[in-house]
């Protein structure tokens, strides 16, 4: 049963990996696969863009020619599905989101097991420094399916000037968020008090944090649990915040619209991805009046969502060892530090504590708060975005549908959660 992953076995395998990597040989032969060509299917996002900025260094170091096939996220998945269904060796390395498609791709046998490769990494690779939470999220049935490239998650961006003007203090609990939104609405009708994702497939990313903070779970005893008291409270709170304090048309809002609204100064609080920092601060208008924090705690405390893009080796690659060289290089401390200096949060503690990186953070107060929030995500984060089942992408549709039904007042919470649970039970039952 995919839901009942053996946590102990998983933790043990991660520990074993860490220990064995520490003991690996120092004289690593980077030129072992000189002359080979490795094909990398990339999602054309800031993570891959930053890494591929150093592509020449990889080719010089290894003598391997890197062929990059880069697409937007959805198109990349289409290409991957086509290639993998054909069991083709056209792609050696690809980017993947374990929290979204991990169960599905692992069940299909598309990932090569990286556990063994990690054991043979260069001595300075320091696999033990990689985020345990993200390694655990990429571990399916005892196999390590990808190595994390970054860490990200939704955080709360808030306007310190508006808070001051309306005599609102930064929220410590979810109830405080509602109270702050209420106060801002009556104090300044020119701004949207609160904005987050309302677009159906995008809702699960932010809603999961709310659900977990309140103490809800997606699955209980093998059944969908949205109609539990905590599930209903999470649905009502999230949709209520967007309906009562969100912008008009919030049901079509994803990161693009939220960033634009916040950047333009029209939102007091925005619950959006840590990856959007650069976009939110574009133009510099928000640099001096923005505060950042993980989403405030609920009844179950703070359980932020923390995910990361991973790099995987195709199970159909005819040269998995050469492919691993690229994965290893891209996730190495050196490259991770270089991309961190471009605003891509590294899933490595050593990078977060690196003096050069700390100096970069000190340049702007907002960067320090951003890193502080990410530190909390790294320490406490859960990678459960949507249902932990093979049909995870489809499960997100039904979560989004329930939230939209409530925002648009098309159903009562009992009806919305019951409809969602019925559909989701069907997905859970699928093999």
């Amino acid at each position, binding site marked *: 049963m995919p839901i009942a992953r053996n946590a102990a076995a998983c933790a043990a395998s991660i520990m074993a990996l860490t220990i064995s990597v520490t003991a690996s040989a120092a004289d690593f032969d980077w030129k072992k696969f000189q002359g080979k060509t490795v094909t990398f299917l990339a999602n054309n996002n800031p993570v891959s863009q930053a890494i591929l900025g150093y592509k020449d260094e990889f080719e010089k170091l290894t003598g391997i020619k890197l062929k990059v096939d880069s697409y937007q996220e959805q198109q990349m998945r289409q290409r991957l599905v086509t290639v993998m269904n054909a069991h083709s060796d056209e792609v050696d390395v690809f980017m993947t989101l374990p929290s979204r498609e991990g169960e*599905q791709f692992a069940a299909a046998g598309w990932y090569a097991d990286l556990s063994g490769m990690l054991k043979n990494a260069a001595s300075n690779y320091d696999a033990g420094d990689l985020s345990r939470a993200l390694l655990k999220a990429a571990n399916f049935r005892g196999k390590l399916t990808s190595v994390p490239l970054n860490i990200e998650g939704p955080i709360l961006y808030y306007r310190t000037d508006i808070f001051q003007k309306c005599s609102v203090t930064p929220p410590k609990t979810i109830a405080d968020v509602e109270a702050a939104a209420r106060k801002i609405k009556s104090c300044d009708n020119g701004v949207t008090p609160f904005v987050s994702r309302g677009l159906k497939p995008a809702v699960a990313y932010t809603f999961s944090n709310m659900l977990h903070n309140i103490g809800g779970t997606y699955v209980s005893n093998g059944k969908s649990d949205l109609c539990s008291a905590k599930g209903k409270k999470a649905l009502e709170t999230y949709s209520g915040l967007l309906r009562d304090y969100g912008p008009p048309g919030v049901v079509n809002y994803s990161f693009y619209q939220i960033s634009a609204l916040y950047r333009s100064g029209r939102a007091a609080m925005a619950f959006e991805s840590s990856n959007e920092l650069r976009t939110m601060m574009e133009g510099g208008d928000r640099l001096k009046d923005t505060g950042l924090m993980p989403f405030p705690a609920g009844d179950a405390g703070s359980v932020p969502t923390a995910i990361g893009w991973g790099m995987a080796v195709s199970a159909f690659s005819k040269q998995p060892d050469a492919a691993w060289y690229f994965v290893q290089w891209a996730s190495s401390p050196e490259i991770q530090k270089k991309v961190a200096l471009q605003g891509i949060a590294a899933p490595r503690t050593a990078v977060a504590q690196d003096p050069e990186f700390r100096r970069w953070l000190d340049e702007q107060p907002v960067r320090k708060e951003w890193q502080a929030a990410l530190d909390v995500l790294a320490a406490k984060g859960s990678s459960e975005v949507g249902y932990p089942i093979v049909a995870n992408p489809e499960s997100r549709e039904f979560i989004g549908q329930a939230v939209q039904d409530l925002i648009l007042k098309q159903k009562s919470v009992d009806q919305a959660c019951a409809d969602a649970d019925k559909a989701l039970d069907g997905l859970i039952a699928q093999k």
Partner: protein
Amino acid sequence: MEIVALSAPAVLFTAGMIAFPLVYTVWLGFHSFTSAGEQRFTGVANYARLVSDWEFWHGLWVTLVLYVLSLALQLVLGIWLAVILFNAKRIHGIVRSLFISPFMMPPVVAGMMWLVILDPSLGAANYLLQSLGLPPSDWLASPTWVIPTIALIDTWQWAPYVALIVLGGLQSLPPSVYEAAQIDGASGFRTFRRITLPLLMPTIVTAMILRSVDLLRFFDIIYITTQGGPGNASNTLNIYGFRVGFEFFNIGYASALMLTLAAIVFGAVLALNRLRHAVAW
């Protein structure tokens, strides 16, 4: 004989390029794929599932409503625009080109542009409404207005294309018929209704066929602006099939959905083709 031999490779290649994807999709439609990547022959199970799938019927309904609304708007506006262009001899060539430029814009650009214009908070559309003392609209975020709004965006883009086709038809009409109508003292409107429209019918039906194929397969603007939402309000059959196949990886069922859509498009084209023969002169 030599001509046949020389053209055979090209003909075979073209036939193969058409037949292979079609046959492969038919084959996929008779299979189901498990999450473990195994495929299983399931006969017509995917087609049987269509019958009881609420989202399929909803998608079909949305597709048809959007098709009828968009086609009607594009034909009326396209013919009107064509008549203006035909009669206004003094319109400069550049102005004419500007009139017909929207359909040359890539759909992704058009979709993003309208997404910004129609944003309920930051968009120019609501700013304009409010400047005129009118209430703002949720546009693409309203389950009620999303289909009319998408139909308007598509009409903005493709009515000029219909106009261009109709303009070609107007320019080829025989002047003698108009001279006879003028001698008989027919009014402008009567001439248009009794002479121009009937004579233009083959051209109009050709435009209908071309637009029907696109409209029944409507995808790009919707995917960029709403992804089928809010809720399922703009979830056309094509959007639904795409999501089933490429987001939920249910390739077998997606193939059955797409073949059904292809059959609907083919049926519409055949019906309109018959109409074209019926109105030929």
